């Protein structure tokens, strides 16, 4: 909580995730060892049961101590199961996704609870699926198998793939086999639990699994790239298209939002008692806060901070408060001076200031300085903070003392609204991958270069495109010099370096020092983009 506050206890046998092994395997030895060594609470309790009859000893007392030190009310049955969320899935295969899809479209919403892990069951059901879907799937699998030849570390199964219906079975079989390792955990833990009937001894972090998962360096996914999609030009479409939400869901979301409106008065009350409010849950919470501001905070000074804004500085926030609102000439450099200044001026003028921070876990607010500044300001009696978080690890931002300054009360405000604004900046994956921004900035810099400099840059690009491989070391400076000389672009090394500074300043080129001490030049842009750029230049 505090501290992350993932109060998601593990619980007894989870009926929601029944895992069945197709083949019974012995437990991995390591795991058993681990389990024996772990001082789980269940064992303590059984020991306790034995010793109560004996006379008390120090050891006995110790046991009782450990027993009583169990949280009684922290975890309830309505908590999310920790195992659901944090469980290791040790081995993944490329077929997992396919199975999932198969299950979804093969048997649309089956009546019996079925999990994707029951592969055999699934395959036998394939007869029931519509013919066209089977064909479709077959085609897709064949296509896939043709394209990936070497992936996955399961050479045995992947080597004798035959594009056939029976193959389906074998592949899924091998798939389940690999998962058997991981499935051992489920029943093992469950058995233990039935004995002890203790909730919190249920979830055991198994470090072995972590290493198992991370040991293989090889990436065992297929080699498909998005380049296979011919029409992948998202830039134009993205902006225009509204997020897709079905009619039914739209109505439901409106209902949800109406429900949250009811909370506004209570929020005001909570804020008035010097607590601050933090909102979590999936979906953009901007709209909720916006309405809160309009409905309740019309007459008081408010500052809205977009934490997701990629070049937000904590200085901007302080300036907004100290200079823009309170009318001082400058912001003191020392944090405690700033806080004292704000405190005294607000108190003097009997004003309450409201800070609305969208995404207090935003990239620019993640450093500890920003957080301690915000915490110290939020602590003030006349400052009231409402913040939102979205990142799953956001609670890790705050330590003990920051949390106690913030005095958050936590509210689950799940809206399912799209994060349109939050993801619209260039640091998001979506725009980064399409590379429009990089491309256009590359273009504009390129246009401002002299012809000679353009030539040099072209040489680097071409070399980079010709030498594409897994780890590209870059173009050695010597080679660049000789090539540039050949084309009469530069006359001396010094001149070349002068030209290069221009690129370096714009981060078009990076120097990379190799082991032998020579300097290599790399363009930190993906080759697809470079190709595209070259094509555009040539036309």
């Amino acid at each position, binding site marked *: 909580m*505090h501290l992350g506050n993932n109060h998601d206890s593990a619980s007894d046998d989870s009926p929601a995730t029944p895992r069945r092994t197709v083949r019974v395997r012995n437990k991995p030895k390591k795991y058993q060892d681990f389990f024996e060594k772990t001082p789980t609470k269940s064992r303590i309790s059984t020991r306790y049961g034995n010793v109560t009859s004996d006379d008390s000893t120090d050891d006995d007392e110790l046991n009782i101590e450990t027993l*009583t030190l169990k949280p009684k009310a922290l975890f309830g049955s309505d908590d999310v199961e920790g195992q*659901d969320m944090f469980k290791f899935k040790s081995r*993944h295969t490329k077929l997992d996704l396919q199975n999932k899809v198969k299950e979804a479209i093969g048997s649309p919403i089956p009546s019996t609870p079925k999990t994707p892990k029951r592969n055999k069951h699934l395959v036998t059901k394939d007869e029931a699926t519509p013919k066209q879907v089977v064909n479709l799937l077959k085609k*897709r699998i064949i296509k896939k198998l043709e394209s990936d030849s070497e992936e996955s570390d399961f050479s045995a199964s992947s080597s004798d793939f035959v594009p056939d219906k029976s193959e389906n079975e074998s592949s899924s079989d091998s798939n389940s086999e690999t998962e058997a390792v991981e499935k051992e955990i489920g029943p093992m833990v469950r058995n233990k639990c039935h004995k002890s009937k203790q909730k919190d001894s249920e979830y055991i972090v198994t470090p072995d699994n972590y290493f198992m998962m991370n040991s293989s360096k090889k990436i065992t996914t297929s080699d498909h790239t998005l380049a296979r999609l011919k029409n992948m030009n998202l830039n134009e*479409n993205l902006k225009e298209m509204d997020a897709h939400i079905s009619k039914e869901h739209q109505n439901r979301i409106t209902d949800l939002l109406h429900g949250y409106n009811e909370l506004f008065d209570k929020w005001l009350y909570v804020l008035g008692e010097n607590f601050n409010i933090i909102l979590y849950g999936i979906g953009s919470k901007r709209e909720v806060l916006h309405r809160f501001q309009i409905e309740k905070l019309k007459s008081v000074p408010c500052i809205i901070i*977009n934490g997701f804004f990629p070049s937000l500085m904590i200085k901007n*926030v302080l300036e907004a408060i100290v200079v823009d609102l309170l009318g001082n000439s400058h912001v003191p450099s020392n944090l405690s001076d700033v806080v004292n200044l704000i405190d005294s001026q607000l108190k003097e003028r009997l004003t*309450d200031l409201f800070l609305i921070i969208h995404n207090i876990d935003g990239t620019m607010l993640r450093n500890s300085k920003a957080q301690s500044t915000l915490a110290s300001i939020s602590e003030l009696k006349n400052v009231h903070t409402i913040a939102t978080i979205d990142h*799953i690890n956001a609670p890790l931002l705050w330590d003990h003392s920051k949390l106690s300054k913030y005095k958050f009360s936590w509210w689950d405000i799940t809206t399912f609204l799209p994060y349109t604004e939050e993801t619209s900046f260039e640091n998001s994956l979506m725009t980064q991958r399409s590379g429009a921004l990089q491309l256009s900035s590359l273009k504009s810099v390129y246009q401002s270069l002299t012809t000679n400099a353009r030539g040099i840059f072209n040489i680097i690009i071409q070399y980079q495109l010709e030498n594409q491989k897994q780890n590209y070391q870059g173009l050695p400076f010597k080679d660049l010099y000789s090539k540039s000389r050949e084309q009469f672009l530069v006359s001396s090394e010094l001149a070349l370096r002068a030209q290069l500074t221009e690129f370096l300043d714009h981060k078009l080129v990076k120097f990379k020092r190799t082991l032998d001490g020579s300097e290599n030049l790399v363009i930190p842009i993906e080759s697809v983009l470079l190709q595209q750029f070259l094509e555009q230049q040539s036309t």
Partner: protein
Amino acid sequence: MESTTSVSKGVFLFPNGYNNGKKSKKKSLSIFESTFSNELWYTSFKRNWDAVEDQLKILHEMTHSVLLNDIVSYLKIAQQGSELNSCDKIIPCITLLTGVNQPDHVDQFKSLIGLIREDVSPHVVMVNSQDAPTLKHLVENTVWQLVNDDNLVDDLEESFDESHKPKLKKSRCTMKTLQSWYNDNLVKSPKKWKKSQHSLVVIIPDFESFNSNVLQDFVMIISSYISTLPVVLIFGVATSVSALHKSFPYQVSSKLLIKVFHSQPSHVYMNQVLENIFLTHSSPFHLSGKAFELLTDVFLFYDFSVTGIIQSIKYCMMDFFYADNIKSLCGDREELNAKISKLTSDDLENIRRLLSFRPFLEVQDCQTKIGLFEDDNFFKEILQEELHNLHDYLFSFYLSLRLLAVFVKDLPKNVMGKSVREIYAKCAAEHIVKTEAFKESMQLINFQSKVQLLETIQSAIEVVNNALQNTSPGPLRSPTKNMLNKSINSLGEEFVKNIKIHFAIFRRQIGNASTEVTVQEEDDDDFDLRGSRYKLKEKLLKATRVDRVQSEFMMIRSRFVNYLEEIFEKSLLPPHTQTFHEILFFTEVSNVKKQIIGAPRGALHVALSNPQCYLQCKCCTLPALESVSDTIPDVSLAYKLHRECGKHINLYDWLQAFAAILCPDSEDPAHDTNIQVRFTRAVAELQFLGFIKTSKRKTDHVMRLTW
């Protein structure tokens, strides 16, 4: 909302009529006051909480006073001895071991500063680690605070007119400035300042957070000035003394004359707070067993912070009072009648709806029932009666709780727990007399020795006396000739007085009772047992068959235990059995639990894996948590698919799967631009939520950040 989105700005100010230039002369109500101050529940909450805060303040001063007085007296001694040390360049230094509950320390240091200002020296500064990242800042801060101390301006000679003098700039604050300031103000004008008042106290409250090099240098600098500047250092150390020794090498620590003080462990303080303020019959509201357990769990398992638990209790209290006028009945018993008369008929209707009213209603006869529903005045009368009963119950409940705590405190194994709060949690949850632990403890009392029993009875009598003293003198309520009254009249002050008399009698009886077992059997078996194991066995067997004859003490003891059981059975009924307990007891713990300890990750997981849980839609019924369907929100679908992947996820395959689920009939769904956009959006949102990040290891791959 568009006004708050911009590509060049992240902070937006809405002054909303805030006028910077002139101060508004008339005292305008703050937004909170204007919204809530007309509500009965709000005023009543405010009043009650203020009362609690006052109590807390008193308690706080009381608990810290011993330690702080120790420190202050040491400081005084150190001042006198300072001449001795100055030749060796040794700085007197106090190390205060504060414990890890850092949020609580602020108050402790504040009262320490106050006390030092009063008793030792007006020159006290406190420098936090966040204000002093480097040595320069540390020195500047210290000197600046000492030189520009506002408290001194008034104290020093008024004729000096220091207020006109501009404050020293921070950059000019060096040790030299300090020295000259010290010479000018304190040495040369000795008429007001006695020699002993000269020492300068520097408090470093969070020792561990400082860069140890900075502190080392600081100590060395001060030690070189110590002959002219009598500085005393106070370090607040959260962990242990070894932290001090680890971060200071010999040449530094040899300059310090360290005296260590231990502050009270936070759990002791918490027990005090709970027992003295919240677990009393005078507490404005009472926590139910579950709520109480939750708060103590948060304390014990998360933060160890007393400030934290007080804030949580405050939060519970806020939730308890929120928008509920009948809660205004909480608080002082004397004002109860006045408060009841203020209730509107709507409020009375709400009280009638309380669950605990039903069992009460069932035992009434028909006439009374009708009266209770039809006649507000009659109902008010009954309500008043019942609430007084409830207060009586509370009084005897908390007293018995303390008595029980006294009796079980020394028992082996601590089946019931050691502190009052543990026992409270048990008693509030169920009828304690019926539990195994209670029976076991009573059995154990039945084995106690005379001396021990006398001691416990003595302390129990003290508890009772204390309780009786604290109640207001005079009759708590006028005796009414009400029919309902007589049946429950056994609790309250009378009951306690009764206990006191009984205890006194028992104490006398036990004191006088002999422990000798009157021997009835004649010892005729003095013959030689050597060599005859059989006979010995025979004798022992016979001995077991003879009835154990009890001594007088034993008999009284068992009578006493029976009496204890009797009073506890009567008085320790759990609160939820009482009529109208909802008015005084906070029970809706599930409401506040989520707000006190948020579960952001859990909420995300639930929303993504089972959207129906939040949306309540008809279309997204999922057979299992892991299954997918084409109706669930895109981000949820992408999330579920990504959980099937390993550490690296191929975007293309992911898209294929995504598209195949959304349009199972299409020949090549992945080429549909609409699908592509939806997928991209979902992926971007997952990245925003922190489930995935981009990866350079392979083209068009992303990395999963969860297991």
